[in-house]
């Protein structure tokens, strides 16, 4: 028998205060109070690593990519493609060419709808989505349905904000060509069983698209393990810049799709008689891309990976539990979205106080939350409410932030008592 191994180092604790130091904006004082930023589902703040990467790019590498033979163009191209490899590893895609840079998650979905969809989805075919999709995973499919005569089917949700699984199984069938589902609902916080959804789609020969805009910065995503055909994410929620997003697609799917937009970079050769399209991923990246954005996103993903998304997820889980407890103690507050699997989102209404008024009152305490329908009007209709107030957490939030929200909500209750 071998010697008992030396005790391994204790797992490094997630040090939120150290993380906060990396985000300069968190030091801001708003209305004489330290900023409490709880609108992370809308966009997250940016760490120094991202800000530095952007500055470095514009001061040391700025040039157009994939064409120039000069030094700057080569270093810019290398940095841009390095960011793609970072994204590939972040999502655990098989190859870098399976990662397409887009403007945002919305563009990723539109790209799939207008290329894969136009080629493979026809009249009387069906697209199945869930009742908790963001408008960005509804409208592109409605547009496609108008263009092709396909039909959109919607999986209902329960009072807790979970999918009605029997209905899901009933709705997906021989006519289904694509199943689209949100990984983490932005208005309910529900984490959907996406691997199971992908399996259900594949069982019926349909492709599966997962909208990971909210998910990818809260817990690890492994597109190979999920086996999804497409996965979309957006840079500005991954602590990266705005205007840059990710579309993952299985290589064989992407190969089989026509280009999305025509232009420079997406071609191999152009004559007036015949144009040959470039290979993946360039086929889907027409025109000069958001080079700095991609590089900034790469820096964000490297930073996140360094912290460890497992650690981030564990920390945020604890914070969400605390937030749930604090909100439940405020009289008149009712949580919207009480699924058993949840992450990072605290959506709620308050008796006698409209969400819009809650937003204004807590803002006076320097607490930033979101109020409204959160681009999920069907979810609001489902729960029979016009809007919710939503506090959404990120890894740099603390229990003190939650306490500040709690105190601000008590103020709101007093004002409207």
């Amino acid at each position: 028998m071998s010697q008992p191994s030396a005790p391994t180092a204790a797992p490094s604790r997630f040090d939120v205060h150290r993380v906060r130091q990396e985000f300069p904006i968190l030091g801001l004082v708003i209305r004489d109070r330290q900023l409490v930023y709880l609108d992370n589902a809308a966009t997250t703040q940016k760490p120094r690593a991202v800000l530095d990467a952007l500055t470095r790019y514009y001061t040391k590498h700025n040039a157009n990519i994939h064409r120039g033979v000069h030094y700057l163009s080569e270093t810019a191209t290398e940095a841009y493609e390095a960011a793609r490899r970072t994204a590939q590893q972040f999502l655990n895609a098989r190859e870098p060419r399976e990662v397409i840079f887009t403007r945002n998650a919305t563009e990723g979905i539109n790209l799939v709808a207008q290329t894969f969809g136009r080629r493979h989805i026809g009249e009387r075919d069906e697209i199945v989505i869930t009742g908790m999709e963001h408008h960005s995973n509804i409208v592109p499919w409605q547009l496609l349905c108008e263009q092709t005569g396909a039909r959109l089917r919607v999986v209902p949700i329960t009072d807790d904000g979970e999918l009605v699984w029997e209905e899901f199984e009933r709705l997906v069938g021989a006519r289904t060509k694509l199943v689209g589902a949100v990984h983490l609902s932005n208005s309910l916080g529900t984490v959907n069983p996406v691997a199971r959804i992908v399996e259900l789609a594949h069982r019926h020969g349909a492709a599966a698209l997962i909208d990971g805009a909210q998910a990818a910065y809260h817990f690890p995503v492994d597109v190979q393990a999920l086996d999804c055909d497409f996965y979309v994410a957006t840079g500005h929620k991954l602590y990266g810049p705005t205007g840059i997003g990710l579309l993952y697609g299985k290589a064989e799917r992407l190969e089989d799709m026509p280009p999305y937009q025509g232009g420079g970079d997406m071609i191999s050769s152009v004559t007036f008689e015949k144009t040959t399209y470039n290979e993946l991923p360039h086929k889907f990246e027409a025109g000069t891309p958001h080079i700095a954005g991609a590089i900034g996103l790469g820096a964000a993903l490297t930073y996140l990976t360094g912290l460890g998304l497992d650690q981030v997820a564990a920390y945020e889980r604890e914070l969400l539990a605390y937030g749930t407890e604090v909100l439940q103690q405020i009289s008149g507050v009712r949580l919207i979205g009480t699924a058993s699997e949840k992450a990072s989102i605290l959506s709620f209404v308050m008796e006698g106080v409209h969400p819009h008024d809650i937003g204004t009152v807590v803002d006076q305490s320097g607490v930033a939350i979101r109020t409204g329908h959160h681009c999920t009007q069907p979810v609001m209709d489902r729960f029979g409410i016009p809007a919710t107030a939503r506090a959404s957490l990120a890894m740099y939030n603390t229990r003190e932030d939650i306490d500040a929200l709690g105190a601000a909500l008590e103020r709101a209750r007093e004002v409207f008592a």
Partner: protein
Amino acid sequence: MFDLRDLYQEVILDHNKRPRNFGQFAQPDRRAEGYNPLCGDKLTLHLALEDDVIRDIVFKGSGCAISTASASLMTESVKGKTLDEVRTLFANFQGMLTGDAEADFDTDVLGKLSVFSGVRAYPARVKCAVLAWHTLQAAIEAKNKVATTE
């Protein structure tokens, strides 16, 4: 807190809790709907006209405190007024919320509508306060479409 009370004055809180002229007519002379797509506020106005005088007016809908109180106070202010007087009121109301200087509005004309002066400091909430007025304007112009704040 002081600055919050500037926005949420007692009169506003009272009208939010107990909206006046809340309801609908069986046969309104004019009706119009208002919608603020940003926050989902919805409002329906019913008017009873006599020549160019608003003889009676009621509203129904759901919204935040500012939009509800604004609709409620508006119905009180315009009842019995001519359409021209209403237009002047609206211009003054808008001047108070978004105008450049005090010259843009007359507090004597506005009367108790002046309680909304605090909204000026909250640009995101101006739309809440003017929704009812846009809707009233649509009813007066007899536009058959939903008035929005966008």
